[in-house]
């Protein structure tokens, strides 16, 4: 269900944005950068994490001081990180519904998946928009492998751009190859450690998800 369909109900539902990607690509770091950036732009926000074997990501965000800990929910993935966002996203949907019940003004819910592989994708029943995060350290051949996550996401984020010279990656060539396999759909570059490229991600969310000018 997209935001316009849900808005046809009695109140405007929160938009739901998925953030997926391989283990260690920087999904939690991206969320940690997006929280203050989105809040600075006045977005009423909540978070769901899908940790694989611990509640570490949820606790990391709760303790970050960036957001009210009550606005961070953890959903266990039962050893199946892709199942909980694709084949059976009901627990995430219920967690999102619960956040909307507890925080009626919430506009945006970020749903961070557990670390998975290049085949993971989000159900459209769960998310209105989803991003896939890969990182330069994984090698510049990741886009060429054409995993469904890389190909089908609404926005591909290539993180850890600062590592490119140290791992022998031609960053511009990696970006061009990503654009080529994605038929020129959005590819954004970030360095979450230093906050580089975050404004472009926030602007994409504002424009394509929240429909703000």
């Amino acid at each position, binding site marked *: 269900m997209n935001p316009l369909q849900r808005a046809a109900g009695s109140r405007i539902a929160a938009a739901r944005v998925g953030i997926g990607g391989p283990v260690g690509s920087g999904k939690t770091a991206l969320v940690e950068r997006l929280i203050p950036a989105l809040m600075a732009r006045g977005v009423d926000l909540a978070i769901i994490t899908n940790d694989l074997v611990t509640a570490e990501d949820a606790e990391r965000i709760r303790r970050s001081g960036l957001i009210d800990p009550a606005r961070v929910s953890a959903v*266990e993935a039962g050893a199946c990180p892709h199942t909980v966002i694709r084949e059976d996203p009901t627990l995430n949907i219920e967690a999102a519904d619960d956040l909307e019940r507890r925080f009626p003004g919430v506009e945006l819910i970020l749903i961070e998946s557990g670390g998975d592989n290049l085949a993971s994708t989000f159900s459209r029943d769960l998310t209105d928009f989803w991003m896939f995060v890969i990182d330069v350290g994984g090698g510049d051949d990741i886009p060429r492998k054409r995993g469904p996550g890389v190909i089908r996401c609404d926005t591909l984020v290539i993180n850890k751009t600062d590592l490119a010279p140290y791992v022998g990656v031609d960053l511009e060539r990696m970006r061009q190859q990503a654009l080529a396999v994605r038929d020129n759909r959005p590819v954004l570059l970030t360095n979450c450690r230093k906050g580089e490229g975050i404004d472009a991600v926030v602007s994409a969310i504002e424009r394509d998800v929240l429909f703000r000018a």
Partner: protein
Amino acid sequence: MFETATALALMQYGDSAYPAGGFAFSWGVEGLAADGLLDGQADLDAFIGEHLAFRWNCMDRPLLTRAHRADDPAAVAAIDRFAEASTPSAQMRDGSRRAGRALLGVSARLGGPLCVRYRALLSSDVRLGHLPVVQALVYRDAALDLRAAELVSGWTLVNGLVSAAVRLGVIGHVEAQQSLETARRALVDVLAEPLPDDLAPSSFTPLIDIAVSRGGSRAVRLFTT
């Protein structure tokens, strides 16, 4: 025997792929395995037998039966609150509610009228949404009679336990099928005994309850329960 349409509905609702979050609940398998108390197929078969005999048959089944016969949402809610009050373990209560609310959400989105009405009550009472109570509503919406509803409820429990054991490496995929066959026989035996109408829901599965209750304190955990 069930008619073809009912049999197909049983397969749909009893399928482990039915999207109701069941894959995230181990109901004690993970905890007992972590403590070395569940290791291999024989242990798993005994564990499933204990679940069926001393929890599902005397707790979940009577709750499901009452909810299946309940006249209105208020009566269902009373049964739901009884389920909450009758479950001492906070983790078990929370797991039952999370599993139930997930199942209810799917059925409500599919337009099940009983589920739509009952889901509207949930925001007003955090105690509501226990799995066996919700199963009764979902299966009533699916036009399953009580016997069919019991069958799906028992089978989804068994299927979930075996699936969790496979993912945790307790058993392999072939052993899983053997365990399911063993569990099928156990479920047949349990269902052969009709429940007395006045049976008060109760359970006695101390090891399972402790294993689930300790889940929140485990540093490494794959499952909700």
